[in-house]
């Protein structure tokens, strides 16, 4: 017990926070896998998971256990170090960035001045992970998937940042807590009304950055079998899978914080409102996934370079002009 006292308070908070965040990611992953499949079933006029547990609610747990029990296997010719490093690089930033997200008025691991930059910088590392995974597994499909992922993620980082900048100029801070609490409790006080274009661009970029449909080219099931994770199985695959859902949650958290008033709601402001907003955004993402066909690679980049970046720049300039007036 004596040892505990000498741990700096900040470090203690971060340790507990990280543990809580990991639990949050794990539970969210399970819930999202279930929701994704159940809603997919609903949209496709079938039942979805049904057998394991009531209404199949335990299906993700069973899937996780199955993946846990699989043989740890390195394909022939693969680079063993990079091959196993890639899924870890993919999941680690996802865990770290959650510490800067304000879940509620008093529910945030660290309230830092560079919260937004921290999140955007760390999520960028995921590109490296997918690239390493695709390259190290010595599979042609994986290689193509990795190449697609690099082009896609690098391209979509730019409009992503450009669409956040107007908000930063409006609020004058990178602090996510201040951005969230700077908005009022009612929907007409949220930044989505001041910056609808930025919101749309940001949402599309989040879809592209998390490789969700219709931008799921790095996985491109019908073209590249499974894309960058073709050769992965067992827990390595599960980590990639979990990371994808974690990045979806991060993206939704960012949108909710920046554009939808964060944890504030008309009544009983708190984490409830934040989670509700996040889950509505996630449901929209799932809905989009089961509705749209996949874009082609060059179309995807055309949308980014020819439409989203110019629009984001114009939006930024207009915002600056209005602010300076």
């Amino acid at each position, binding site marked *: 017990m004596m040892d505990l006292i000498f741990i700096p308070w900040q470090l203690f908070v971060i340790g507990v926070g990280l543990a809580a965040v990991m639990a949050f990611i794990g539970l969210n992953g399970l819930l999202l896998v279930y929701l994704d499949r159940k809603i*997919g079933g609903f*949209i*496709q*006029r*079938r039942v979805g998971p049904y057998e394991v547990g009531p209404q199949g609610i335990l299906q993700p747990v069973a899937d996780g256990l199955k993946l846990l029990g699989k043989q740890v296997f390195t394909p*022939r*010719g693969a*680079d063993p170090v990079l091959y196993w490093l890639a899924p870890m690089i993919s999941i680690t930033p996802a865990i770290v960035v959650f510490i800067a997200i304000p879940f509620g008025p008093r529910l945030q691991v660290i309230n830092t001045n560079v919260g937004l930059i921290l999140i955007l910088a760390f999520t960028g590392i995921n590109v490296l992970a997918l690239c390493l995974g695709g390259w190290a597994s*010595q599979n*042609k*499909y994986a*290689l*193509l998937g990795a*190449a*697609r992922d690099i082009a896609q993620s690098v391209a979509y980082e730019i409009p992503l940042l450009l669409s956040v900048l107007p908000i930063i100029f409006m609020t004058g801070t990178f602090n996510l807590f201040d951005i969230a609490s700077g908005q009022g409790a009612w929907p007409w006080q949220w930044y989505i009304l001041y910056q609808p274009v930025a919101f749309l661009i940001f949402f599309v970029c989040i879809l592209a950055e998390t490789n969700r*449909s*219709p931008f*799921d080219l790095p996985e*491109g*099931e*019908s*073209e*590249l*079998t499974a894309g960058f994770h073709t050769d992965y199985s067992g827990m390595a695959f599960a980590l990639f899978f979990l990371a994808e859902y974690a990045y979806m949650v991060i993206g939704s958290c960012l949108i909710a914080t920046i554009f939808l008033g964060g944890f504030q709601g008309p009544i009983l402001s708190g984490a409830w409102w934040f989670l509700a907003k996040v889950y509505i955004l996630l449901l929209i993402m799932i809905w989009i996934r*089961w*509705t*749209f*066909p*996949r*874009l*082609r*690679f*060059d*179309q995807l980049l055309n949308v980014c370079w020819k439409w989203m970046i110019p629009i984001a720049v114009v939006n930024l300039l207009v915002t600056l002009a209005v602010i300076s007036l």
Partner: protein
Amino acid sequence: MRNRNGTRITMDLDRRLQTHGDFYSQKFQTTEREDTLVLNLGPQHPSTHGVLRILLEIDGEYILRAEPVLGYIHRMHEKIAEVMTYPQFAPYTGRIDYLHPLAWGWAHIGAVERLMEVQVPERAEYIRVITCELNRISSHLLWWGAYINDLGAFTPFFYAFDDREIISDILQRIIGSRLTFSFYRIGGVATDIDDRFVTETREFCNRMKERLKMYKALVTDNFIFRNRLEGIGVIPFETCRKYGATGPVLRGSGKAYDVRRAEPYSIYNRFDFEIPVYDTCDAMGRYLVRMDEIKESIKIIEQALDALPEGECINRKASKRPKPSPNDVYFATEGGRGKIGAHLVSDGGRSPYRLKLRSPSFSNLSLFSEVAQGTLIADAISILGSLDLVIPEIDR
């Protein structure tokens, strides 16, 4: 850099993995360039829908050369026909093209009937037309779902199967099977249809007309979907003629050739229906041709149900163990994928001397390597889907 075995790590994945490929990989003629990748698309691949294998030489995502490798599901159907009696071969035709088996069955039985000069009762001709057109709709529906699945949208597949299920149920009641139908017999059909069949088919036709409107709103008008199809995989009419492409591929290239109209068999010349033609020559043209064909098939079915005569469903005088005199005949039908031909040669015995089957998918696939050159991998998948290939039919 060296790997664990001490061999030098190079950029060439094949050399690094110490795989040398099979006969086709080794004989695959690549371009002169050195910075390209040879990719095996198949024989196990989600988008080849069967055991089709395509060797691709790619530069990044661009295809420099494409070569289909066939024969993974070659089952010697033509040889089997030579060692069996004429009626015995009938069930095999359902295995050639499992999506439109009735058209294949009709091609074989029609050839035998022409060889034997057997008369088919009126009612049997109508039943053949109704079941064959129902089967054509189910074939096009499955293609529709699978094609959009290839393009990355998973949901329409289930909608298509929802409709297809009704056709399967209707046909199961009178035929007995749900996939590899074998219904046509020499001189007629195996079983007669009843009132329930007629009402169920009419209900399905009405339902399908509504569903087609929804499919148009849900899929055909989708912005992303149109961008994936329009201007992709342009097959000029000359290319179609060079490779002998038929069916929706040819009609999507602006030529209104349909065996049902060009060389009418059975009673098709009695019905009023259009041959859908689009001269855009791209994947969208082929897509729209098939969607319109579903409508036309419904029209044919409704007319046939209205005019359905009473009578026998099979010519009782037709021989169960035919022994035709030496002769050779050719009979062609219009399948879901194009012109199906059966060239039957008899030497006077109980089994044919030779049965040559002309499969539309084989000709349609042949033009792929020419069309796919210079396209992206995603486009190649789109082109492959728009050809509507059934692999067992290619290899036979």
